[in-house]
């Protein structure tokens, strides 16, 4: 299980802002192998977002090569990139980005709609399974405004899982959540990573969150400043259990009917 999912070589990305050229990435190289849980850290302006866009095939580097699951992304056109995103990447966003007034099930089905090979029944089955995997099997018909922030984010994770991508790409996925919900999301991601072997790339600026991953890359000024495995990897489940008990809350990962006291997040606009 050590095949390379991501291979980045001297990735550079420059933007032209009027007369100035902004160099967001100045030569980033690293590999990610299957089954890793990588966090990318960095303060704002470090090139984090640009790197994320590049990894997510939303943007192409100005120079350098990026291989995603063996495919050279730099040579692809708009439509091929879209196909790659559909098949190989599962996005999780800070603000969930669920479709309002649409049931959890339909939200999760969405990526499959853009894959012609999947029949309506298959789509439904897979979406149901994905929601069950994030412990929302009993909330299939709930719309986002009937779900708490943590639950919405779990729907978003189910949506990222449903296409069985090679990598889950999370962008500040806990940024809008209180610490309890954050830990529960991290526990879910850790579970997916350790028990199902999902490769996860998690972009964050919180060192606390990074400590749950197996490896951390720190960016500064568009370059990799530090790339090291986490020796003291914490378990989100344990952290969650160590939190002072709250009578209206049950850990999400442990109980199937784990619902309740998570703070309601802002609905995506």
């Amino acid at each position, binding site marked *: 299980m050590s095949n390379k999912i991501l291979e980045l070589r001297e990735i550079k990305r420059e933007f032209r802002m009027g007369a100035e050229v902004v160099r967001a990435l100045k030569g980033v190289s690293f590999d990610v192998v299957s089954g890793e849980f990588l966090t990318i850290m960095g303060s704002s302006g470090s090139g984090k977002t640009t790197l994320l866009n590049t990894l997510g095939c*939303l943007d192409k580097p100005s120079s350098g090569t990026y291989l995603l699951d063996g495919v050279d992304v730099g040579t692809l056109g708009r439509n091929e990139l*879209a196909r790659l995103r*559909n098949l190989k990447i599962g996005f999780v966003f800070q603000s969930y980005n669920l479709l309002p007034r649409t049931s959890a099930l339909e939200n999760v089905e969405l990526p499959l*709609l*853009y894959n012609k090979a999947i029949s309506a029944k298959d789509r439904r089955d897979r979406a149901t399974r994905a929601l069950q995997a994030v412990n929302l099997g009993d909330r299939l018909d709930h719309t986002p405004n009937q779900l708490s922030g943590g639950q919405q984010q779990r729907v978003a994770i189910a949506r990222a899982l449903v296409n069985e991508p090679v990598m889950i790409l999370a962008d500040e996925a806990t940024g809008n959540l209180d610490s309890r919900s954050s830990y529960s999301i991290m526990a879910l991601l850790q579970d997916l990573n350790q028990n199902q072997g999902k490769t996860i790339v998690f972009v964050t600026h919180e060192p606390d969150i990074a400590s749950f991953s197996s490896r951390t890359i720190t960016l500064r000024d568009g370059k990799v400043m530090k790339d090291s495995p986490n020796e003291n990897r914490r378990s989100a489940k344990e952290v969650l259990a160590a939190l002072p008990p709250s009578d209206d809350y049950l850990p999400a990962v442990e109980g199937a009917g784990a619902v309740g006291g998570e703070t309601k997040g802002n609905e*995506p*606009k």
Partner: protein
Amino acid sequence: MNFINLLRIALKALQRNKLRAFLTMLGIIIGVASVIAMVAIGQGSKQSIQQQLSGMGSNMIIIRPNSNIAAGARLDAGSVQTLTIDDVNALQKKATHLSAVSPMSQTKGQAIYGNNNWPTTIQGVNPQYVEIIRQWPLKDGVTFTDRDVQAMSKVCLLGQTVIANLFPGGENPVGKYIRFGKIPMLVIGTLSQKGENAFGQDQDDVIMAPYTTVQKRILSTIYFQQIYVSARDENSTDEASAEISDIMRTSHRLKPTDDDDFAVRTMQELINTFSATSSLLTILLTAIAGISLLVGGIGIMNIMYVSVTERTREIGLRMSIGARGIDILMQFLTEAILISITGGLIGVALGITSAKLVTYFLSWPTLITEYSIVLSFLVCAVTGVFFGYYPAQKASRLDPIEALRYE
């Protein structure tokens, strides 16, 4: 992305904004409904004019003697008598485009019954004139026959105006003897009410009798004032009138250099004039309705732009999970077309209903034509594509990165 999925997504999006979708549709609904209703009213009045003319005998052709030149001065049309029974026979024998030929010998005079009298016109014709050329149904009694014509029978048919004046008490005139001038005549039938013609003349102020009776017993002449002819149908009046000219020239033994000594008049010109007027009316109404359809289309475009802006993040999300530009384009285009086609269908129904209501309450004649339905439906589908395309294209060209972070 297959068609059913597209349709589902579009329906879903419209369901999320039902009122807005309906209001947008309303523009199209009113547009299509007004096109159909307006065209129906225009066509209806056109048809009713044509029917009126048809009642007068729109395939009727009238042959009269032409003007004459006497000592270098041209005289009135009809100043000479040239039409005889030979012309009628020749036409009946040779013509192929005609369904009926009747001589017409008429004169004015006083009709008398009991102590009532009434100045009217007596028309001497053959039975075909009543049945075929004028298509004039009898109200009562029977019509005269060819034997009556041969026998110069003193029988007649009365028009309703004559009946009203000679028989004010409402008694049945059939079987009574009236006098026309000095000649007693047996009323064998009555003509049904025909009303005024397009020129305001009372068509019911008439007595009809065998032409021989009028020609010989009243006028004492061998000539006819006119010959009435009926073409097989309205479209063959041109061929029929050409044929009539040929036959008449032969019958009158005219040399190729001679001018016609008769004139052929068709009613077709009259119909054309009326049709042209009401066609203009239809065009005018259609133009107004078309403008409202255009306004409806602009409404769609406006709403689609709002929708694209409002759902920028949704578009970004869809792109990030694998939607291609074309998928987004098709999604918004489907929405626009769905709005316009649904609006179109409702509009067709509403248009037909309102045309029927106009007929029912205002008793305006309306005629719903298939072409107006097909046309307005096509126009609104095209409107959907045309006005939906630009917003949809705008959506499909969004940069997913910017769209995802759009506030």
